[in-house]
């Protein structure tokens, strides 16, 4: 596609429910990143995938968070048993190679009520 696509754009869920967030990267981009951005805050690294290497999960805040990527395409970020502190915008980005810039999607705004 023309850019990084994320869905849904907005998600309201009840505390304790599971949610899945989807990211479609730019075709051919080998690296894919997930970040969390709380209101008025910076980007908190969650996880990244690079080609066939094992993902770097060092930023996942708890075992309620997990992510998968199918080959070099779609990725899903799953949050189990959502908590109110999970409310944030979740941003996905992809890049072609290490020395190129990352392209960001518009994000998924998650609200846990």
């Amino acid at each position, binding site marked *: 596609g023309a850019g990084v696509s994320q869905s849904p754009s907005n998600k309201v869920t009840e505390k304790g429910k599971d949610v899945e967030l989807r990211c479609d990267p730019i075709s051919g981009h080998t690296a894919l*990143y997930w970040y969390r951005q709380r209101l008025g805050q910076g980007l908190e*690294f969650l996880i*990244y995938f690079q080609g066939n290497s094992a993902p*770097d999960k060092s930023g996942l805040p708890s075992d309620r968070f997990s992510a998968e990527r199918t080959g070099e395409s779609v990725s899903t970020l799953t949050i189990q048993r959502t908590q109110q502190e999970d409310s944030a915008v979740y*941003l996905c980005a992809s890049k072609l190679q290490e020395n190129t*810039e990352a392209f960001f999607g*518009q994000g998924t705004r998650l609200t846990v009520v």
Partner: protein
Amino acid sequence: AQSVAQPEDQVNVAEGNPLTVKCTYSVSGNPYLFWYVQYPNRGLQFLLKYITGDNLVKGSYGFEAEFNKSQTSFHLKKPSALVSDSALYFCAVNNDYKLSFGAGTTVTVRA
């Protein structure tokens, strides 16, 4: 480990004045450095990058940045700020594919 510091939460300048947004980094090896801008309720947009070569790099919307290896800095600059430059600016460092961002600096340009 790698990290990025943006020491100023906010920068306020008058339109037409020079704008500088500071960034320092810590990384092993040679860094790839980036600046991004985020307008309200918008995604992040790439401004410019330093990979290698000339320490002064030019990017979108009249922005430039200077890579200083001895000071491990990559400050963003614009000679004459516009009201429309008001936004949230992020510095980022990439090493071995891990892309880390600073906390961001809110720039306000007053008319």
